[in-house]
């Protein structure tokens, strides 16, 4: 049991990460922190996302690429190494981005879109089973529970980043610095705590 960290080397010069969620969950801030951590680690990085709907409860996705040298900010379908979803349906929606045997990290939370009621399209029942058709590793995180235990549901994104960090060869200091650079100063200690809580969960599988 256990999978290796994704190392950036001759065999794998670029790591592709897809981060998805629902507007308001903090996906875009999390992907900012990820690219800043990569910069702090001396790596090249590009990320792509579309703003505009993020505050209105729409589906949000950010594509992040990290490596020695990155050209395109976009990830081709079927080539993402890691899919990290802040909501279960948003894992299923972007599963086609994942490479066979890739890693899925998902926050075990269901936010039902209105279309389930109006268009009568059911919310997928067994998200883990669907993801496992493609993924080599599936990790569910009780993100909301952990965030509530920490006293603030707004730190979900730092928990998810912590969970992601176990798969990447980026030093803790580079992460911490990135968090300090990006989140409101008052919330730095709480976000770092949240990051550590997330890292603890995924450490077990790497």
């Amino acid at each position, binding site marked *: 049991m256990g999978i290796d960290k994704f190392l950036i080397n001759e065999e794998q010069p670029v790591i592709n990460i897809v981060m998805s969620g629902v507007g308001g969950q903090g996906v875009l801030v999390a992907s900012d922190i990820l690219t800043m951590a990569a910069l702090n680690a001396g790596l090249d990085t590009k990320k792509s996302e579309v703003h505009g709907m993020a505050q209105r409860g729409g589906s949000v996705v950010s594509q992040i690429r990290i490596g020695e040298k990155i050209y*395109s900010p976009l990830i*081709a*379908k079927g080539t993402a190494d890691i899919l990290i979803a802040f909501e279960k349906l948003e894992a299923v929606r972007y599963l086609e981005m994942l490479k066979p045997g890739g890693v899925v990290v998902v926050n075990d939370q269901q936010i039902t*879109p*209105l279309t*389930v009621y109006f268009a009568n*399209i059911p919310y997928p029942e067994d998200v883990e089973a669907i993801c496992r058709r493609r993924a080599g590793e599936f990790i569910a995180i009780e993100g909301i529970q952990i965030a509530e235990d920490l006293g603030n549901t707004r730190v979900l994104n730092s928990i998810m980043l912590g969970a992601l960090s176990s798969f990447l060869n980026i030093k803790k200091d580079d992460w911490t610095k990135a968090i300090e650079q990006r989140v409101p100063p008052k919330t730095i200690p709480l976000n770092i705590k949240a990051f550590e809580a997330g890292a603890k969960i995924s450490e077990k599988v790497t």
Partner: protein
Amino acid sequence: MKLGLTFPLPKELIREFAAKVDKLFVIEELDPFMEEQILAMGIAVEGKNKLPVIGELDLNIVREALLGDSPDDMKFSVKEPIPARPPSLCPGCSHRGVFYALKKLKLTVTGDIGCYTLGALPPLEAMDTCLCMGASVGFSEGMEKTEGEELQGKVVGVIGDSTFFHSGITGLIDIFYNQSNAKLIILDNQITAMTGHQEHPGSGLNLRREPTNRVDIEKLVRAIGIERIVKINPYDLKETIDTIKEEMQVDGPSVMIADAPCVIRERKVFTKPYYVIADKCTKCGMCDKVGCSAIEKDEDGKTKINPLLCIGCDICRQVCRFDAIIRPADN
């Protein structure tokens, strides 16, 4: 080769590059802008015979267009239908009450561009046209003047405050000047909300959020010469419906101003989250019709309200006929 200067095209560079390759493709998004110019230079080039003229390009699209196929790894898809998650009016949005009223009154609504364009989506579906910035005003005038008896008193324009400043004012001048009976609702949430809350001439703040002069919409409309101007409180559904109904019947133009700041901008919370008494909920579906993402269903299909999303705007309570939705006691 990748070009940075795309007009005028660096023709010598392109000729040199073309001479070095067997076959030349132009990969460009949307129109064959470079391709046609390079063809006109007498260079054999392909592009839009294989690539789409709409949409973004990505690696998968380009690969399939030029190489004919993609590796199997790239062809995975989930079999199950995946419910879409379109954006929707925020819980507590001040636009919701107006669109609920417009739907209820079965009016023909010429719409405009902003957050409130989301009023066109189900379940509200209370917007019939959306053309460009400001078009709600001219559209309603044109329809009102030509559509005959059956649409008299049935067409109303809906425009946001920022869009009104952008391109709505001239249309309203035309309504007055050319003696139209058109009716207009200005959704004044005092900010350019859709693009992320930018200030505008009516917000009283400049780009750096320092105090500045403020254009008063009501005074502006009055200065044009429009005499009938009424304010609407969009959080009171009955008042909103009655006011719109009455204004639609008047002779001459009327401007209704729905005056309520953007709740996201203000970080507004009206009350503690509302809740549902399950025994009283009959699953009639009335509350679904306000299109609020805080309204969810429990295992039995009864309404429940997501306390993380509800800010207590009261709209859903006003449509519930069974008093199942409860306003929390103030304390």
